[in-house]
């Protein structure tokens, strides 16, 4: 469970986050959307414990985030960061296994968990390749597998689909939905409104460091609201096969 109470953060004079209140329930996928510079990634790093807010309280699993040690925090939340490289030539299997390095789970389950995660993000066939030689998308899938093996109740994804092709965008978000069905609280920053609409239970629309709207995809992604926040005319129509809206620019 994630609960944010009145979070504010400034850098110099600029307000990055402005009194954000949000709560995400276990078993749900929440998509965080909004234009560039709206504060999505900043909010995610506050929840991840990377950045301490100037004001307000972050509560993960009923406990204030300040009360966790770095190692405790790694037991309850996994983070898919924006842009991840690796500095030495570790192979993919080693990178994925790093997700378990300081996880207090029985080590005899590690091998099976790593194998399953690599299968799910379709990197198993390149398990022994040097992770430095991967393409951007392959790297992102390796990182996603690493997030999966951490098996945390709170999963934070910062643009997990940015580098991925169509198939893997769907696969990664389906995995995120599976995690939620298994009881995890999933929060994902997404740029593609249609991916958000198709997979998220709830969408949080941010604008200028504050939450502009929250609700189901149909409630948030209205022509008027998207047009106003993104300053771009759009039309919204039902997806021909899925029961979700589709946003098209016009």
């Amino acid at each position, binding site marked *: 469970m994630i609960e944010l109470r009145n979070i504010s953060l400034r850098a110099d004079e600029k307000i990055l986050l402005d009194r954000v209140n949000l709560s995400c329930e276990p078993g749900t996928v929440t998509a965080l959307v909004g234009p560039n510079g709206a504060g999505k990634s900043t909010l995610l790093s506050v929840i*991840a*414990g*990377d950045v301490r807010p100037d004001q307000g309280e972050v509560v993960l699993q009923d406990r204030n985030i300040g009360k966790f*040690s*770095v*190692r405790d*925090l*790694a*037991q309850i*939340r*996994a*983070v898919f*960061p924006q*842009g*991840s*490289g*690796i*500095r*030495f*030539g*570790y*192979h993919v*299997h*080693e*990178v994925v296994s*790093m*997700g378990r*390095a*300081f*996880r207090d789970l029985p080590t005899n389950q590690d091998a099976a968990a790593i*194998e399953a995660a*690599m*299968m799910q993000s*379709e990197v*198993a*066939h390149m*398990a*022994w390749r040097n992770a430095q030689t991967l393409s951007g998308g392959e790297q992102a899938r390796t990182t996603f597998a690493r997030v999966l093996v*951490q098996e945390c109740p709170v999963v934070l994804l910062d643009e997990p689909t940015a580098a991925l092709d169509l198939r893997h965008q769907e696969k990664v978000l389906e995995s995120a939905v599976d995690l939620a069905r298994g009881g995890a609280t999933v929060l994902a920053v997404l740029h593609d409104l249609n991916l958000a609409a198709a997979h998220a239970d709830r969408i949080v629309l941010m604008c200028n460091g504050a939450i502009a709207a929250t609700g189901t995809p149909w409630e948030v992604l209205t022509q008027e609201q998207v047009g106003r926040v993104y300053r771009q005319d759009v039309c919204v129509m039902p997806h021909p096969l899925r029961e979700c809206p589709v946003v098209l620019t016009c």
Partner: protein
Amino acid sequence: MTTPNSIANTLGTTPHRPRDHTRLIGSVIAIVFGTVFLATIAIGPVSLQFGQVLSALGARFSDAPLDADTALNVAVVWDLRLARSVTAIIVGASLATCGAAMQGLFGNPLADPGIVGVSSGASLGAIAVIVLQVSTFGIWTLPIGAFLAGVGTTFLIYGLARPGREGTDSSQLLLVGIAVNAIGGSVAGYLTYLATAEQLQSLTFWAMGSLSTAKWLTVGITIGPAIAGMVLLMIWARQLDLLALGERQARHLGVDVPKLRRKLIFVTALLVAAAVSFNGTIGFVGLVVPHIFRLLIGPGHRRLIPFSAIGGGLLVMLADLVARSMDPPNEIPIGVIMGSLGGPFFLWMIWTGRAQGKGT
């Protein structure tokens, strides 16, 4: 024809792990290490057979009376050569493991105690102790001076080069290294200017590095910190691995990065001090050895640290052997030997790094 299904099948299988040659490489290195160790004891002005070396080594542990020849051999082996060989191992192992740890900490394969300036900082501490005739801690003054100066320099370099964050590249670290080496060099130069003729001789020896003053006393002083440093690095090996993902992601996975950083700075300075405080600056060991073993056995620190220790010991034993057998009974400074090997190696690393288009 490839159907979508067959693509999915090939994607879904984990290929068998490629053959792991670590054991083979380990055995070969161990054999070479043992042979070179015996060779460093056998070769010298009094030349010994391997059999004589072994019997002389063993003679200390038996009460059997010795004939005159064996007694001489025992004296040569135990009083002259063994302490020197053990010193070579301590120096090499300390510098190589220190290099491996610094490269992990800075996330940069070019981080070497010599290149980024930790060695020159530690040397400066030792030179200051010699010239200013500080003797606060008795025989421990020199290593403690080197250690404190090493810690200070590492913190300075780390603070300025700020590795592990987005947007920093390796040139920053090397630039800081150039500046720190220049400052260390000029302060050392000034102290050299102040030094007496007698001090001057020991300073020159210091700047170029030599194992000729190796004694059981200096072995006794440096072996403890060296072993302690290496054991600690082994304990932190997994955290060093995670640091390769960058500070932020290492933190997400449970590594307290600021704490680890402080611990690593102290331990790398400890290892450098153990290596340089009595033997002067010997460059490039920390660069060459971990780099070669990363290519051979991979970057994982649980293997890299012990392999670097053995490889570093081996390299310095060999270099010292060359240093004292090229022009006997004179000795070429070992720093000169290492520099002439390490300089071209460094250029080769930059060259291959450029060929891969990754800068370094």
